[in-house]
């Protein structure tokens, strides 16, 4: 069980695409920094849907994104703090930063 960590926007970088190519069904993905923008894009949301998705709450809030914006995403997104990110790093077997 892997925690995949993506930091860059899927519109600029292949990190999220490559991560999704090799993500196993039981894995989780945490989106941080510009990677949270994928939550606004239906194409990426469809690809994220099968997985347990988390996003750093501070990065979402920093970009002016609110519950309202994310409500349209139609997938369950856990907004987590940095403390929870650390806890998740330990409940998963390893963290891969893409």
């Amino acid at each position, binding site marked *: 069980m892997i925690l995949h960590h993506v930091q860059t926007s899927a519109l600029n970088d*292949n990190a999220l695409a*490559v991560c999704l*190519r*090799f993500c*196993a069904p039981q894995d989780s993905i945490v989106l941080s920094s510009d990677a949270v923008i994928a939550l606004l894009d239906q194409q990426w949301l469809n690809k994220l849907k099968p997985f347990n998705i988390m996003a750093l709450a501070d990065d979402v809030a920093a970009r002016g994104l609110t519950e309202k914006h994310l409500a349209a995403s139609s997938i369950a997104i856990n907004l987590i703090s940095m403390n929870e990110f650390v806890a998740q790093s330990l409940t998963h077997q*390893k963290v*891969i*930063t893409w």
Partner: protein
Amino acid sequence: MKHICVVFRHAPFGATSSREGIDFALLSASFEQQLCLVFTDEAVLHLLADQQPELAGSKDYVSVFKAFDLYDIEHVLVCETSLQRFGLTLEDLAISAQLASSTVITEQLQQADEVLVF
């Protein structure tokens, strides 16, 4: 000893991350870690024969790939999807590598103790 998987996902020479990833991989192997290298997306282009990195202002860090055996790096996986996307086959590559489906690479990532992406 740990089982370390190093994934390359960037094109050659446009950025220095692959070169620094190779440095890390070779050093890990010399520290007797168990290494597996994965080339995916544009990074598969690192394995093409007849590259001339100097023309792009880069040090030739791709010739060393031929010496992976000397470093006991036996597992070099090339993402099949990526090769196909660029119209390439194993015959186009300068080194002998294993053609790997996404499923095989996913399993490698699960099995490794740590995975570093460059």
